[in-house]
């Protein structure tokens, strides 16, 4: 066999755990689910893994397993596919394959009215509390909540339009 494979399962894990986790995190948005699903991918994929496979084949296999695991997660929790891991040309460990969220988000935010864009930046991108965000924007907490809900609704509309 060509010498471009992995020596053992531990090497497979060390080399691929981070991009698999990040790929999933970008599609579930929270650590608890990302950790569970990443564990599921490796527990399912490593046992039957053939070490004669090349690095590229192993990564393709891990991405395919992650796709299946993520699809099952959405069916079980929300009954529909919210996000997916697509077939792509780029290698699975590349930034473009891991997540396109930053580019997409920048595109969406740029199309929102100023106060909508700012509340989403504060709450999501900067992780600020509703209270801090309200103070920053000079509105009441109740107003900030309403603003956030409306901003997310509009962002979702813009995002879906960009999709189709």
């Amino acid at each position: 066999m060509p010498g471009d494979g992995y020596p053992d399962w531990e090497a497979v894990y060390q080399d691929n755990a981070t991009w698999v986790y990040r790929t999933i995190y970008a599609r579930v948005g929270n650590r608890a689910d990302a950790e569970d699903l990443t564990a599921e991918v490796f527990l399912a994929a490593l046992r039957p893994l053939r070490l004669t496979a090349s690095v590229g084949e192993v990564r393709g296999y891990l991405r395919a397993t992650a796709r299946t695991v993520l699809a099952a997660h959405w069916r079980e929790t929300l009954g529909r596919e919210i996000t997916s891991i697509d077939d792509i040309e780029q290698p699975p460990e590349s930034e473009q394959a891991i997540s396109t969220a930053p580019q997409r988000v920048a595109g969406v935010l740029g199309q929102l009215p100023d106060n909508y864009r700012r509340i989403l930046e504060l709450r999501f991108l900067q992780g600020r509390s509703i209270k801090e965000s309200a103070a920053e924007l000079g509105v009441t907490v109740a107003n900030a909540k309403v603003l956030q809900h409306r901003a997310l609704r509009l962002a979702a509309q813009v995002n879906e339009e960009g999709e189709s």
Partner: protein
Amino acid sequence: MNTRALRRYIDDLLRGRRPKPFRPDDFEAAQIRTAIELQAARQESDAPRPEFLADLHRRLAAQQDSAARPAPKSNATRRNVIVGTSAAAAAAVAAVSIDRALIDSQVAEGGNSEPQELTPSTGRWVRVAASADVTGGVMRPFDVGSVIGFVRRVDGKAEAVSGVCTHQGCRLWFDAPDDRLRCPCHSTSFAPTGLVVTHQLPIAPTPLPTLMVREQGGVIEVFVPAPPNWSA
């Protein structure tokens, strides 16, 4: 509409908690998708915790350890169980034993249970469907005697997987709304690619073998092994 559940879901995402399941409608799903992207775009938020990586490493080591121990299991016994249950099962066994024979020989070489391609050394191309009948999103079943399977189209190209469960040889059916192949015997399910999606068995069954496919003159053909008494 499920405004309260949606708000709670978004709130959980923002607080870094595990969100709770509910049944969102289209627009709620779109908002969740956007919230996830916003959350994932946060700087430096997506690196795995070292504690998590170390813990998963331990779990994998334990799993690999138990897998390394020789498990006394005989395929012959399993097959005997199936033989004689019904005509349908018998037909399925004919197919699975071909799968098994090929998989087993490859397992012996490399301990591999990744999806295998069935590549019989002697065999023939058999028509399984008209090209026009295999369109996007459909898994079209076929049964040519020695091989039972499903053919579908992926990016314009025809692909086929075995239609026999890798656990005990039961015949799979295609659950179109869920886009998966289901086994009626032990509720195992497979993705159209052949990968296992769900199972309730102590050991995960192997993925479905893929079959060699070619398409020409408006016809899709699968390469099937010659039957034992085949001579031509």
